[in-house]
């Protein structure tokens, strides 16, 4: 069967990283083709390329549509060629009606005016095609996420899409909605519309896909016919690499229990659904608890919630050093000896326009007081000490943090956390976006922390890092604990299976 859409040895480089390396991929007319891979494997980059978001000329290799070279210069080009992407974050205007959303930007006209009759008529037909039984004048804000997704698909159909690309379409869907969506896709397939289905959820992939392509570290690993493979084989292909001894984790000597979490549930907002459910774990002095999981599993939310910076407690008990921890705010958490280094240092970590010194001491100012005023001598000495021990590469403490490299910025965030003299340290993706040298320094710091009797909770999306640096590992899946492992038990296959909510037997 000839390929409808094909990527031939595509290489895509960003400053400092090669996101895709000689990737090849083909989509046949009327098939559902799943794209699988760990976080950062290159799936998003490939989708952006196929949909014209990374225009022709910014990559090497070629895209072919209907066996002819395709040079998309923009998203519009790709849309005209019949390629439509349904993104994770939906691109609908909530205040407008379904019909208005369907024809947004290409309203049918009669003369200078919008032809409303035609809009209503066609909207009704389109909604019937995606099996959505709702009046076309319903505001989109009144629809559930599942129905909104169907509206997105209807919108794509209205533009005569031949290729639908769905990026994690079921991340926010309830089970019943997932079924509706998968039925919809099968129905479209029978009418010759091809679909690229990006998902972490192997159950869905195996339920709907004809073929599966696995990406890892920016390269195509394999393309398999779903009927001829197993979930275990796919997971192995996704993980597939050696865990090298890049991680100088020292032997742990766990002491007393510092942090206990019992049956914790929490929601984003007062009325919202619980996003963290029945989570229990404990962390001891001197040990590193690794926290893994796929994107959206709730790792960051868990840390931010315990730290008092996210969500509303629904139930459960948290104690720190034997005392109940009612962290209603970061102020209270810090006072109790808990500190968080956020994954998003530009947003939650640093005041970029201010100096290194300003940022280092920001969390510790109340302790650096003499009377009502800041004891500037003590502050300067404390700053100087961290500046040197962390080896921040900058001319002086007065250099603006915004001018530093990622690794040095991260050191400043870590230094700020250290200055609070915490007992429990939460590190959320502490090595994201920093170079290898700085990574090793971060690992050394983790060792130093545990050696000094602190408890560390380390969130990481990179399995090698998680396995290399943790003494125990907890995998989250969909806001719950998907599995707990000792260092000896942890294998990439087992961890990934737990992250995907699959039981041990598969591994």
């Amino acid at each position, binding site marked *: 069967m000839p390929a409808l859409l094909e990527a031939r040895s595509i290489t895509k480089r960003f400053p400092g990283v090669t996101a895709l390396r000689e990737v090849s991929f083909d989509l046949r007319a009327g098939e559902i083709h799943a794209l699988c891979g760990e976080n950062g494997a290159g799936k998003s980059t490939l989708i952006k390329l196929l949909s014209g978001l990374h225009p022709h000329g910014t990559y090497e290799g070629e895209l072919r549509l209907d066996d002819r070279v395709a040079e998309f210069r923009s998203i519009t080009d790709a849309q005209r060629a019949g390629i439509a992407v349904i993104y994770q974050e939906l691109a609908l205007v909530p205040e407008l009606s379904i019909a208005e959303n369907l024809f947004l930007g290409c309203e049918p006209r009669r003369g200078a005016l919008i032809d409303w009759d035609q809009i209503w008529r066609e909207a009704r037909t389109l909604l019937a095609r995606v099996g959505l039984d709702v009046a076309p004048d319903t505001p989109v804000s009144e629809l559930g996420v599942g129905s909104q997704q169907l509206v997105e698909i209807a919108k794509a159909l209205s533009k005569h899409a031949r290729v639908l690309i769905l990026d994690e379409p079921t991340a926010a869907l309830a089970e019943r909605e997932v079924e509706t969506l998968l039925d919809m896709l099968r129905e479209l397939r029978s009418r010759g519309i091809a679909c690229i289905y990006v998902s972490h959820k192997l159950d869905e992939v195996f339920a709907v896909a004809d073929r599966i392509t696995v990406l890892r570290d920016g390269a195509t690993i394999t393309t398999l016919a779903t009927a001829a493979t197993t979930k275990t084989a796919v997971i192995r292909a996704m993980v597939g690499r050696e865990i090298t001894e890049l991680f100088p984790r020292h032997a742990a000597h766990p002491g007393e229990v510092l942090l206990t979490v019992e049956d914790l549930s929490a929601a984003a907002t007062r009325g919202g659904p619980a996003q963290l459910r029945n989570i229990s774990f404990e962390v001891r002095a001197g040990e590193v608890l690794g926290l893994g999981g796929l994107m959206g599993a709730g790792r960051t939310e868990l840390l931010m919630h315990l*730290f008092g*910076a996210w969500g509303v407690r629904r139930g459960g008990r948290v104690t720190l050093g034997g005392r109940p921890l009612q962290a209603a*705010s*970061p*102020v209270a*958490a*810090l006072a109790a000896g808990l500190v*968080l280094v*956020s994954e998003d240092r530009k*947003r*939650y*970590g*640093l*005041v*970029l*326009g*201010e100096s290194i010194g*300003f940022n280092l001491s*920001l*969390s510790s*100012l*109340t302790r*650096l*007081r003499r009377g*009502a*005023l*800041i004891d*500037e*001598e003590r502050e*300067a000495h404390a700053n*100087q000490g961290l500046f040197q021990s962390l080896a921040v590469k900058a001319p*002086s*403490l*007065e250099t603006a943090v915004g001018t530093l490299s990622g690794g040095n910025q991260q050191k400043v965030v870590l230094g*700020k956390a250290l200055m*609070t003299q915490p007992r429990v340290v939460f590190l959320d993706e502490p090595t994201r976006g920093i170079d290898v040298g700085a990574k090793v320094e971060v690992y050394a710091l983790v060792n130093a922390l545990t050696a000094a009797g602190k408890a560390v909770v380390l969130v990481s999306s990179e399995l090698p890092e998680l396995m290399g640096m943790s003494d125990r590992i907890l995998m989250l899946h969909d806001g719950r604990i998907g599995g707990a492992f000792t260092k000896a038990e942890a294998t990439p296959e087992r961890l990934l299976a737990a992250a995907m909510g699959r039981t041990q037997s598969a591994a």
Partner: protein
Amino acid sequence: MKAKLTLRDFSLLLSLLAIGGFFALAAPQFLSARNLSMLAVELAITATLALGMLLVILPGHIDLSVGSGVGLMGGIASVLIINHGWPAGAALAASGVVALVLWLAMGALIVRQRIPAFIITLGGLLIFKGAFWLVIGSHTIPVVAGGQSNLYSLLTTFYLPPAASGVLVAVVFVGIVALNLRARRRRAALGFAVDEAEVAFLKLFLCAQGLLLFVLTVNQFRGIPLPVVILGGVALVIQVITRHTPFGRHLYAIGGNEEAAFVSGVPVPRTVIAAFTLLGGIVAVTGFMQTAYAGASTTTVGDSMELDAIAACVIGGTSLRGGRGTVLGVLFGALIMASLLNGMTLLAVAPELKFIVRGVVLTLAVWMDVKLAKR
């Protein structure tokens, strides 16, 4: 290592010299002792309010209600004294407490209910204006019964005698030199950048000249006006608060990156509410001075003073996005605004035109702020 002087340091001084030079030529009485004394009082009033405004702009908020507040607080005090026979001190204190409560309430609304400061204080502008007119019954209420004087009226009619003025200025200068030297020693000991000795000396020399010129001029009239002393006190307090307390650092951190400040353990709500409450106190003080300067509460006292205060902050290098601004800059900004107004009054510029010029200057200043922020 040496500290660099920025373009901004000069641009303010140069604009000030240009404005002063222009008015000196166009209206020779601009430089008279009497007028400069008046200008000092006007500057003190504008600058005091602007320093309060700095406290809420630093964390990225704004207050449009201060002008109406100036009228209302002055009005409450006037009415308590004239209509109810309160002693001046008690009246001022009572009015001051009202201001603190009102601004605490506005701060709490902004932070707890997450309503933008722009909206809350726009509401405040209208409400306080209406309340002001209600309080004074839309009449003219003097600050003191005819021909007498009280604490209220003395706010702008009392002058420090020339001898005392000289001593005060000398003490202030010695204090500045001592603090400068101490800060310099400390910074050098920590390996921070310090000005070259010549530059440091030049700055102090200029400062000495300015102070000397100021005291010699005002002494030709009646000495240092009390509002200038009040401004000095307010400026010192705000300088210490913004530069040397955790609260001040927190203001900058919130304005620079509120989410990072929150996660770093900055008590964001409490800090912002405290900033607004402090501003309330300053609004009251400004209200008393402005009303005393006018001699009575009339319906127009405080009109558009919020704009002069914001303009002074922005001209002085304060970023309306928050996180950037200094006391010294705001003082310069206020001096520029006050000089402009005073000079235009001397030249008998029509009120229509005065408004236009103030608008143009404000726009230019914001435009400059955007330009310089992009660098």
